[in-house]
């Protein structure tokens, strides 16, 4: 029976992710516009964009290879798989045993590499700029992420996201300095990974400041739709990751009856809402930094994460 429940939860979760991703992006844009005193596009605008792109026939460069047309699908698939593994409203979904943080990180890397290759495929300068810078950001983000994972695995005795969320949800571990430091690092990583201000500007149209946008410059039609959708999904994945790790409240524990899901869902919506409000505020408050300042930005994240681990060692309080 519980198998069926878990499977149901998994399916609902995937559906939720697919639905929520564009909405989240739309919300952020709306809030940012409002903060800037504009009315801004309607919240459903991302949906419309996707639909419009899906209706358009893509134009490929003459020398584009199958890598170019295949990459968006790979990226979206990998991101979707990652999204399926990050719990939203309930723990103990079918995918829970798979939801290893390293695996999720790996899946996101897979998506990034696919797009990086795609950026190189047509052989234009902007694609190269985008790919190389994207890979560089990853080079600095990965150690920070791994150190955060280190902290969590020390606390929960496992790198399985479900187990970690469960352990934190029970509150047995209480409130810890390490977690705070880890949260800061995690936020910085999330900003970098999703190409938000100050690392990158998702809405820019000035080529030289573009990273992610430059990488996918050649794309159009359904390919672009997939890429956009993947980006939105990725943002939700990260928000969900932060939510279920650092704000582990109101999520339905494993094996809980389906009735607990409602609360979990509400909690999730609340957490995501708060996070994206914060993100919007942050993005409006701050300016984009030069590309070569990003390593410093992420380096600080690494330091915070390192501090988090060392604090754990000093306090000796890990499983």
């Amino acid at each position, binding site marked *: 029976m519980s198998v069926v429940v878990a499977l149901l939860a998994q399916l609902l979760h995937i559906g939720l992710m697919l639905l929520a991703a564009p909405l989240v992006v739309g919300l952020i844009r709306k809030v940012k516009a409002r903060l800037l005193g504009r009315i801004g596009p309607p919240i459903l605008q991302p949906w419309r964009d996707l639909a419009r792109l899906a*209706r358009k*026939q893509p*134009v*490929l*460069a*003459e*020398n584009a290879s199958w*890598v170019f047309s295949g990459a968006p*699908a790979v990226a979206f*698939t990998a991101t*979707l*798989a990652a999204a*399926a593994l990050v719990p939203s409203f309930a723990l103990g979904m079918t*995918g*829970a*045993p*798979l939801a*290893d943080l*390293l*695996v999720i990180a*790996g*899946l996101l*890397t*897979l998506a990034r*590499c696919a797009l*990086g290759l795609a*950026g*190189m495929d*047509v*052989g*234009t*300068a902007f*694609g*190269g*700029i985008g*790919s*190389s810078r994207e*890979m*560089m950001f*990853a*080079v*600095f983000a*990965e*150690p920070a992420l*791994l150190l955060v994972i*280190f902290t969590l*695995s*020390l606390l929960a*005795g*496992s*790198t399985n996201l*479900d187990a970690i969320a469960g352990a934190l949800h029970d509150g047995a571990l209480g409130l810890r300095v390490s977690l705070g430091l880890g949260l800061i690092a995690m936020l910085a990583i999330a900003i970098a990974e999703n190409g938000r201000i100050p690392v990158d500007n998702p809405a820019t149209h000035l080529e030289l400041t573009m990273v992610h946008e430059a990488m996918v410059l050649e794309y159009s039609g*359904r390919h672009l*739709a997939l890429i956009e959708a993947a980006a939105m999904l990725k943002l939700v994945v990260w928000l969900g990751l932060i939510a279920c790790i650092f704000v582990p409240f109101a999520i339905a524990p494993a094996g809980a009856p389906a009735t607990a899901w409602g609360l979990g869902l509400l909690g999730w919506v609340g957490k995501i809402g708060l996070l994206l409000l914060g993100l919007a505020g942050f993005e409006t408050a701050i300016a984009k930094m030069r590309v*070569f300042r990003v*390593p410093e930005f992420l380096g600080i994240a690494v330091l915070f994460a*390192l501090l988090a681990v*060392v604090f754990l*060692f000093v306090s000796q309080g*890990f499983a």
Partner: protein
Amino acid sequence: MIALLLPALAVVVTLLLALGLASVAAGPGRQGRLASRGSLLLCALGGLLAVVQLLSGAEASSLSLGIGLPGLPLHLALDGLSAAFMLLLMLTGAAAAAAALDDHGQYDSTAPFFPVFLGGMALTLLAADGFALVLGFEVMSLASFALVLTNHRDAEVRAAALLYIGMAGLGAMCLIPCMALLAVGADFTFAAMRTHPPEGWRALAVLVLVLVGAGSKAGLAPLHVWLPPAHAAAPGHVSALMSGAMTKIALYVLIRVLFDLCGPAQPMGWGAPLVLLGALGAVLGGLRANMEGDVKTVLASSTVEHIGLIAIGLGFALAARAADLPGLATLAFGGALLHALAHGMFKALLFLAAGATQHAAGTRRLDRLGGLIHGMPKTTALVLVGAAGLAALPPSAGFAGEWTLFQAVLAAPRLGGLGWQVLACVAAALMALAAALAASAAVRLIGVAYLGRPRTPRAAAATDPGQPMLAALAGLAGASLLVGLFPGAALRLLGPAVQQAVGTGVVGHVGWLTISPQADTAGYTAPALAVVLGLAGGLVYFIVRRWTVSGERRGPAWDCGFGDPPNWLPFGDPVTQYGGASFAQPLRRALATSLMQARETVDMPLPGETRPAHMKVRLRDPADQYLFALIGSWRSRVSHFADFMQFLTIRSTLAVMFCALLILMAAVAALEQL
């Protein structure tokens, strides 16, 4: 039947060595084919025997031969450890031999050394006494030295070979004393060594010697400097074998000495140098892989990186065994072994592909390749499989190995002691850095060399290699996919080796499908992940087919509205695409300026000038600069002194003689006064 495995393998080794002579007898022109075909056959046979040995529980058997040192027979033995590495060796060997069949006669001159190379490695694995081990190791070095020199008309090749053989000599001169230190009296069989593990300064000396002797061969930093040039200089199938198998053989020697011969009673600290050097090498190799401008050098640098990762695993395994944490030890060692296997597969694949690419496009330089995917679609597809392993993307073999290694490092704080804990988290961060660097290097390699637009006519005209090479590539790709999809099964197959090295089997952690850090917790289930990816892929496919218009149109690249390339450039304007150096620029600015003293000198002509702009980049491997250059300068200083001693005038020479006499006399007089 099991008892016959060792003799059978010994016969295989003998035949491999004999095959070298036979192919010499066959004479130029025919020796290449004979050597390759024979090696292929023998490697297949040997791999089969190794698998049987592993599946049969791998109880050790031994054998002694009539030849060897005067009056001392040569001892051979086969156990789990040697069988595991034998399997790896024979797989890569078979692939390399198959690829060598597609050689267009250019490897013919040194072909006889190929089976000898394989034989030397196999002998190292079967060795059961110090002499046999060093003998096999040196035969391996010498044969590979000859193979590296295949294109000896090229001065760079000669320089690389010289550095290589020098390091080989150093390795021998460290391994021989190492074996002598381990020997019990005049008896240097492994059986005797196990009964008397070294203690005190002897143990320390053994550790240092084996780290230098075997580590230099494995490409462990900071003695990795020889590796990139040598691998680049060798023909493709040889560098595949060197990188895929030979470095692992060196690791085998390291394991054999540190885990097996030195016994379990060694202090925890023994793991630390391996971890530190491994982390150093991982980062340095990964960074270099992003900086180098030559396909094979890139691959070789990434070999340095992966060897570093494996060394980290070995170090933690050693420490955990000393701290009596069997679970951690098993995990770390299993991870190291799994990653060694995975790396052997995909790195051999990539080197073979690099060889094919060089043959097809006439160059190894990234900045003269490009767009090969159009001319060599099959090769590119297979290279992508290998590169996925290089970048450790799930569910590739590389990811399985690194996942296990990461799990081991994450569990390492259980070793206790702030030192080890900090070491663990620093190692983890550096491993993550290295992994990300590897991913970036993989994207750079594929993106610049195989994607984009061809930068030279030759690159535009490149075509897929012949059937044997493609078969070899496909075989390796298939093997690495298998390892990636069923790491648990692979690790169980290698189980006897783990059992033998750290004393506890892998069964507690490793199911046929799942690898778990501890027996009870959730782990990494590669097949399930593959299923999830498949389902997601299916979903995407469905969405795309259902809700989007099909078909596509072709047009000129948008490129932000830049104009069409000038029509006097036949392949568009390849210079405007990102090349190797330009892709490396962000990392160069961010990391290499400090770690590798990267210096850029840009020569930008003024507006209106017609001369081209130039950018020169200077990079130096710190190990090269601070270790090897120093040693070289000292060597020449001493040589000058020796020369001075030799070319004195006759009178001065007499004076030297006179002084020697007087000193000896004075010494005798003094000694007698005492």
